C-alpha cells in the first residue's frame, strides 16, 4: 500500500499553501461588493460618509487581528497610532487651511489659528515637514510605526509581554492624550485640529469629495486586507501563531522572538495610522478623543466581536458595532456604554472567535453541505477527495 503516501505527497506539492482558499476569495468578493457597490448605491451621502468613518476603524481592527489574534500581543493603545496618523494628516490640512490670506486677521498670519490664540508667533519645527504633501504621506505611516518600533523594541527585548504590555500600551494612550490636551499651542488641545478645508487645493468638504474619499478608503482597506493576508499566509504568520502558543520553542528553533513581535506590533500600528489619516480626511478634524483609553478599548472590541482570528470578521465586526453604536446611542445615549461592555463580555464568554467563529462553525458547514448536495459528485471520487480537503479545514 504505497499508493496513499504517493497521493498525499502529490496533493501536498500541487496545492498546499495557496494565497487564499476559494472560500476566502468569496469572502473578499462579498466584502468588496458590499463596501464598493451595495453601500454606495443604497445609502445617501451622509450615511455613506458615516460608514466611511466606521471603516477607518476597521484598519485598526485589521491590525489587531495580526497583532492580538495571531501574535497574541494585546494592545490597548491602538488609538495612539490611529491618532498619530490622523494628526499627521490633520497638520498638513491645517497648514494648507492657514494660508496667509485665510489668516490675515491673526496677529501672526500664516500659522494655525490655535497657535495664534496661544501667543505662538512662529511655526514650531515639528510642524515644518507637514508643509509638503509627499512628506506628509510618508510621515502619516512613518511616525506611528517608528513610535511603535521604539515602544515595542524596548519592551520585547526585555521580554515584557502579556498583561504588562497591555497595561503599558494603555498608559501610553493616556499619556499621549494628556500631552496633546496640555500642549494646546502646539496641538490644538482638547478641541483637536479643526476647520480643515483642502487637500493640495482640492476641497474635501464637498459631497463629491466625500464620495471619492469613501472609495479611496475602501480601496485602501482592501489593499490592507490583502497585505495582512500575505503576512498571515507567509511563514512569518505561522511563526506568530507558534510564538503565541510556545514562545520558548520558537526561540529554541533559532528565531529571535522579539523581532517578530516588533514586526506584528508595527504592522498593526501602520494599519491604524492609515485608518487615522483617512478618518481625518473624511470627518474633517482630529482630536484627542480618538487617542485615549476608551477609543483604544473600543477598537479591541471591534476585533473581538468580528473574530480576532479573521481579517474579514474584523471588518464586519467594526461595521456591526458602530452601526449598533449609532442606532442605540441615538435612542439611549446613557445606556450605550453599558451595552458595549455587555456585548464584549458576551462575545468573550460565548463566542470567543466572534462573528467569524459563528460563521465558520454554524453557517459555512451548512453551506458546503448544500453546495455538495447540489453538485451530486460521483461516489467513486468523493471519499478520496474528502480526505485532503477535510483535513486542513480543522
Amino acid at each position, binding site marked *: 500500500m504505497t499508493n*496513499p*503516501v504517493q497521493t*498525499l*505527497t502529490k496533493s*501536498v*506539492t500541487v496545492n*498546499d*499553501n495557496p494565497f487564499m482558499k476559494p472560500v476566502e476569495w468569496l469572502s473578499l468578493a462579498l466584502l468588496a461588493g458590499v463596501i464598493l457597490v451595495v453601500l454606495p448605491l443604497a445609502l445617501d451621502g451622509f450615511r455613506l460618509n458615516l460608514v466611511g468613518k466606521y471603516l477607518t476603524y476597521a484598519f485598526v481592527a485589521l491590525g489587531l487581528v495580526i497583532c492580538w489574534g495571531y501574535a497574541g500581543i494585546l494592545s490597548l493603545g491602538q488609538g495612539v497610532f490611529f491618532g498619530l496618523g490622523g494628526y499627521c494628516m490633520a497638520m498638513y490640512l491645517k497648514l494648507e487651511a492657514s494660508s496667509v490670506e485665510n489668516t490675515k486677521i491673526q496677529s501672526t498670519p500664516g500659522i494655525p489659528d490655535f497657535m495664534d490664540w496661544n501667543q505662538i508667533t512662529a511655526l514650531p519645527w515639528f510642524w515644518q515637514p507637514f508643509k509638503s504633501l509627499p512628506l506628509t504621506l510618508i510621515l502619516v505611516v512613518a511616525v506611528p510605526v517608528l513610535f511603535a518600533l521604539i515602544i515595542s523594541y524596548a519592551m520585547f527585548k526585555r521580554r515584557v509581554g502579556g498583561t504588562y504590555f497591555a497595561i503599558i500600551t494603555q498608559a501610553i494612550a493616556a499619556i499621549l492624550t494628556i500631552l496633546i490636551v496640555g500642549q494646546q499651542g502646539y496641538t490644538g488641545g482638547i478641541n483637536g485640529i479643526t476647520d480643515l478645508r483642502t487637500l493640495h487645493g482640492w476641497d474635501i468638504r464637498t459631497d463629491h469629495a466625500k464620495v471619492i474619499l469613501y472609495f479611496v478608503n475602501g480601496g485602501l482597506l482592501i489593499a490592507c486586507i490583502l497585505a495582512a493576508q500575505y*503576512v498571515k499566509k*507567509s*511563514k*512569518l504568520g*505561522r*511563526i506568530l*501563531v*507558534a510564538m*503565541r*502558543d*510556545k514562545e*520558548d*520553542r*520558537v*526561540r*529554541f*528553533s*533559532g*528565531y*529571535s*522572538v522579539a*523581532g*517578530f513581535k*516588533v*514586526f506584528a506590533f508595527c504592522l498593526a500600528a501602520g494599519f491604524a495610522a492609515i485608518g487615522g489619516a483617512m478618518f481625518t480626511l473624511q470627518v474633517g478634524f482630529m482630536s484627542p478623543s480618538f487617542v485615549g483609553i476608551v477609543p483604544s478599548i473600543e477598537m479591541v472590541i471591534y476585533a473581538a466581536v468580528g473574530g480576532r482570528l479573521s481579517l474579514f470578521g474584523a471588518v464586519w465586526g467594526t461595521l456591526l458595532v458602530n452601526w449598533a453604536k449609532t442606532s442605540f446611542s441615538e435612542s439611549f445615549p446613557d445606556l450605550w456604554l453599558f451595552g458595549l461592555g455587555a456585548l464584549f463580555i458576551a462575545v468573550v464568554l460565548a463566542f470567543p472567535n466572534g462573528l467569524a467563529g459563528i460563521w465558520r462553525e454554524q453557517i459555512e458547514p451548512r453551506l458546503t453541505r448544500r453546495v455538495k448536495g447540489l453538485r451530486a459528485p460521483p461516489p467513486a471520487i468523493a471519499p478520496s477527495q474528502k480526505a*485532503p480537503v477535510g*483535513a*486542513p479545514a*480543522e
Partner: protein
Amino acid sequence: MNAALLSSPVVGAEAMPADYLLAVEALTVSFDGFKAVNDVSFYVDPDEIRVIIGPNGAGKTTVLDLICGRTKASTGSIKYKGQELTKLSESAIVQAGVGRKFQTPSIYDDLTVFENLEISFPRGRSVFGALTFKRDAEVRDRIHEIAQTIFLKDQLKERAEFLSHGQKQWLEIGMLLIQDPELLMLDEPVAGMSVGERIKTAELLNQIIKGRSVLVIEHDMKFVEDIAHRVTVLHQGKVLSEGSMERVKTDPKVIEVYLGH
C-alpha cells in the same frame, strides 16, 4: 575535573582541549544563594553520546538550560567548538548548532505536523526571511524525509494538538532533526511513553545520533545502558561520578546516593 579527563577514552584529549565539541568548566548558577549547579565541569567529544543521570533536584535540567541559554550562568564557562555560549542569546546558540528537546513535548498545537517541521527548517530565520520564505522542493523533500524517520508521514496534515503523547515527543525530535544540530540535547525523551513507543524511540534515537553528539537526561537505566557511551552522575548540583556505565554502577558514591543513606 581531573576524573573527567582521566576517564576519557579519547587518547591525547588532555593535551588538546580544543578537540572537545562541548567543554563545560566550573559552571555555577545560584538562585538567591541556592546553588542549583555548583562548579560542574564535563567535556563531550564529537559523536559521543553522554547521558546525565542523578536523583531529582540534582540540577540535570538546569545544566541543559544553561547550555542552551535559557538560564544565565553565574560563573563558569560553556565552550561549544571553542565558542563561548554563556554570552549568546538562545537563538544564536541554536544557530551555532545546538538543539534542545524539552521534558514535556514542546510543539505548536495549532499548527499541522508539516508546519511544525517547516518552522524548524533552518532557513528564513530573520523577520524578512520568514516573510519571503518559499516552500520549495528542498523544504518539502526534507520535511517528508524527516516525517518518515519520526513515523509521522501519514499525519503531516494533522494538527499537532491531536497527536498522541508519544507522537508529540517524536515530532519534537523531528523538529530538532530538521535543524540538523551538531549537539543534540534531549531531556527525558522516553518519559511517559508506552513500552511500544519506547522501543520505537530507542530505534529512532539510535538512527539520529549518527554524526552528532548527544547529551541526554534519562531515568530509565535500561535505556541508558543501551545508548550511553559515557555517563555523568549529578548530585546536589555537583558531579558525583563520571565514566562508563559499568564504572559508574560500581562507584560506591553513586550506590550510596541511589540506594540509601
